[in-house]
């Protein structure tokens, strides 16, 4: 551990030393952005992983061993991502659970696959990630092409909108969701009067909004992230935009409400069922808030589930051999996670990805509507 440090000219070597140290734990690798513009999302994910591990460890761990979470910074960048993944592999992880940006997740996934290590994705929703033909990729979150049709159905079937505007932010996730939503809307006969992208970080979107409002859509659906969503809500209110403001699951964050203030009232987000609204997950929210002094991020619950389901698979396999874990993950059936029942299909996606809407009411997200088995819109019961 110390010796390589002496090679001052080769500081890289010191990272080797750190890895193989504690053989009595089972290591879970969590590659997420810990610096750069996406750091806040990555830190929320890593914290959720630690919370899940702590809970499992407190209950005796897995196979008699403790779980150790090793988070590595991928800065949402392909090059750094592959290095983070490789560092985790060399560090002897049994499984990887994590990811945030699809752009970094893909090369990470290739690296893990090559090393035979299973990867349970928590937040990267791009459909392509599970269609690479790898049998060791799983994900606890739904895919963009599943949320899009749900959003489309809500806009046409529940809101009975005739005209809709869809805005994305030109990131992989956002564009994918927007494309799928637009396709669903068109299929349902809704006139998509505007479909364009904004630049995240630009702050002022009133030019776009005033143009959109001149096209008088009934609904504006924004598929990007919460910070721009807050600005859109706020600026739309200032412009007296009458269209209903909606967003995808990445807009489901309290920052939206803090940014837009009263203008956030009525913002509707499509999302997978969140722990906040699931009776079984109340504890998670409390624990997370207590441990990290902040509410969980939008993907924290998915990461929590990813770690939990991975631990379950290790227990089922009775081994930390990656091949055995992969096989066990494929056999997982109806595991009750925070985000609902988890069963993986052949490519590793969840068989049932259910969605709900949440609405900002009195300064907080409140449960909205969901589709019941008969295809009717019913309120979500807490």
């Amino acid at each position, binding site marked *: 551990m110390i010796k390589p440090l002496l090679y001052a000219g080769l500081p890289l070597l010191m*990272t080797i030393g750190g890895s193989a140290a504690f053989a009595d734990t089972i290591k879970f690798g969590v590659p997420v952005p810990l610096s750069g513009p996406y750091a806040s999302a990555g830190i929320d994910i890593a914290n959720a992983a630690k919370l899940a591990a702590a809970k499992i460890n407190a209950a005796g761990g897995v196979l008699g061993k403790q779980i150790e979470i090793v988070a590595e910074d991928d800065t949402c960048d*392909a090059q750094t991502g592959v290095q983070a993944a490789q560092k985790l592999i060399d560090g002897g992880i049994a499984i990887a659970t994590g990811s945030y940006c699809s752009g970094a997740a893909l090369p990470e996934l290739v690296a893990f696959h090559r090393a035979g290590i299973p990867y349970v994705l928590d937040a990267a929703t791009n459909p392509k990630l599970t269609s690479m033909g790898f049998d060791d990729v799983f994900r606890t979150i739904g895919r963009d092409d599943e949320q899009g049709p749900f959003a489309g159905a809500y806009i046409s079937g529940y809101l009975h909108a005739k005209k809709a505007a869809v805005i994305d932010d030109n990131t992989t996730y956002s564009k994918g969701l927007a494309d799928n939503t637009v396709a669903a809307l068109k299929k349902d006969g809704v006139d998509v009067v505007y479909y364009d992208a904004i630049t995240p970080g630009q702050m002022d979107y009133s030019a776009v909004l005033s143009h959109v409002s001149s096209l008088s859509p009934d609904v504006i659906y924004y598929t990007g992230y919460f910070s721009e969503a807050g600005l859109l809500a706020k600026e739309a209110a200032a412009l007296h935009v009458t269209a209903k403001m909606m967003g995808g699951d990445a807009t489901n964050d309290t920052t939206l409400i803090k940014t837009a203030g009263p203008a956030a009232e009525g913002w509707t987000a499509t999302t997978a069922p969140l722990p906040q609204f699931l009776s079984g997950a109340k504890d998670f929210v409390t624990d997370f808030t207590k441990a990290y002094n902040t509410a969980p991020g939008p993907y924290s619950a998915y990461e929590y589930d990813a770690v939990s389901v991975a631990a379950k698979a290790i227990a089922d396999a009775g081994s930390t051999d990656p091949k055995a874990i992969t096989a066990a993950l494929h056999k997982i059936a109806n595991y009750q996670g925070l985000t609902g029942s988890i069963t993986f299909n052949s490519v590793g996606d969840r068989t049932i990805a259910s969605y709900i809407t949440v609405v900002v009411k009195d300064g907080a997200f409140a449960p909205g509507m969901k589709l019941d088995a008969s295809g009717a819109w019913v309120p979500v019961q807490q």
Partner: protein
Amino acid sequence: MQGLTRRPLATAGIAALIVAAFIPFFCHNYIVDVALTIVTYGILALGLNIVVGYAGLLDLGYAAFFAIGAYTTSLLETLTGLNFWETLPFSIVFAGIAGIVIGYPTLRLRSDYLAIVTLGFGEIVRIIATNLDITGGPNGIYGINPANFFGHDLTAPKAVYTLALVFLVGVLILVIRLGQSRLGRAWTSLREDEAAAEAVGVPTLRVKMLAYVIGALIGGLGGSLFAARFGAIDPTSFTYAQSVSILIIVVLGGRGSIPGVLVGAIVVAGLPEALRFLHNWREFIFAVALIILMLVRPQGLWPARLRHIAAPSVDEAHATPHADPAEQIAETTAGEPDVLLEARDVSRVFGGLKAVAGVNFTVHRGEILSIIGPNGAGKTTVFNCLTGVIPPTSGAIIWNGRPLTKLAPHKVVARGLARTFQGIRLFDNLTVFENVLVGMDHRFHVSLASEMAALPYARRETHLHHAAGRNWLEFVGLASQAGLRAGDLPYGDQRRLEIARALAGQPQLLLLDEPAAGMNPTEKQSLMGLIRRIRDLGTTVLLIEHDMLLVMGVSDRVIVMDRGQVIATGSPQDVQSNPRVIEAYLGSDEEDEEDAPEISSLPAGALA
């Protein structure tokens, strides 16, 4: 001697590469991946180094070329099914074309404006890739096949690393050869002093363009490698931040220094990895380290050394046919008319001020003609008009019976007019010998490719020019200083080197702007001899000089200028006795105590 100083570096470099080649056998994949990133950055930085380091142009959008290479390979592979190696030429060519597209309209911009234009270009390329469907939009392109080598897919980090290392070696050979080539020399001259380079015959716009294009080619190659490594690309890999990282590598390492750039790549790509144990503090500490490194070593971690091309020995130079000054000049001056140059009513106005107001004179072949006159008389402006540095506001310059107006300075040099400067403008960070070689730039005929490949006839030409350059140094008496840094020469020697640099272009007319300035009497004596010897070779000399002893001693004819006009022309004796000249040049001799009318008498106490 120079050979000896070169060898340890080359040996160390090769040793380092061999060590690098063995990394996959000893290290974890993680280390290999980091090393691969370093190598990729190394390739890109070597490419950017051509633009920033060699040619001195600021480029903040280099990632654009990287992107174009990556997208070309990815699209061709996924759309047409070409394999990696087949797409590679396309990537490189497309990146090169992009280099032309961005370079052409912007080459005339000053460097800070160039910075934002290149930045804008980089952003434009990225946004186009994000917005178009064919490029996969923000998703980018997936499922790119890895490079294949005799049936083996190069997918494992170790295999890709080896491939990248081979590319790096290729690029290294290319950039080292380029650095030694005449193009490399032209780039350096551009970086040192663009206007002077142009004025001694370097076609600066074309040379800048080549820097862009060759830099772009290497960027394209890096991009292809990147695509093959990850099997997937998306626009987020080609941001402004990426361009900036590559720029940091070049500047931190040492602009123009190949080992420096490689060290820079190791620091910039490796340090953040080495700092992973700092978690959240990693980027902050890296930023602070960057600032401190730059403060401690403003020239870079491993600054570029003086370019060294050894001058041939005396015997070697003398033995080379066609390298003799007299013979060279004779070649160029045969069979032309007696009036070499004629200035017809040349005027130049600067913001309402007539610096040159309708000047007429002729220069006869084979004479030594001097232009004298007080400071501000417009002499240097006449030189600048003659050599194309400043276009005359009106009037014509006739050269060998044909008009010479509105030609770029380097073309004027190619026609046979060479000059020196009033304030010495040598390329300080080139050797004495290479300064002379820059002056010969326009005389090279061999293509760059043949020079790089060291084809026999190209080597012959290089050899001839080196010998000729060596002889010109000997002609002005600087042969023994050939290997010194030009900026380190004493003042008088710098003046003579400027003359040698101008002569090396085989001019028919040599324009000397105050060559004796700062020389002591002994040096001036030898300068007079030198000017006469230049004339004896058959080169006509046009001289601006304040030193009357020199002017009167050496000139066949003298033109006197005052306030933008020619006030007298004639033999030295005529001019010396012309009262108008004496008054204009030396000031009035009469006692004059009267106050000038436009100045009132000093009010009492005004200056108390």
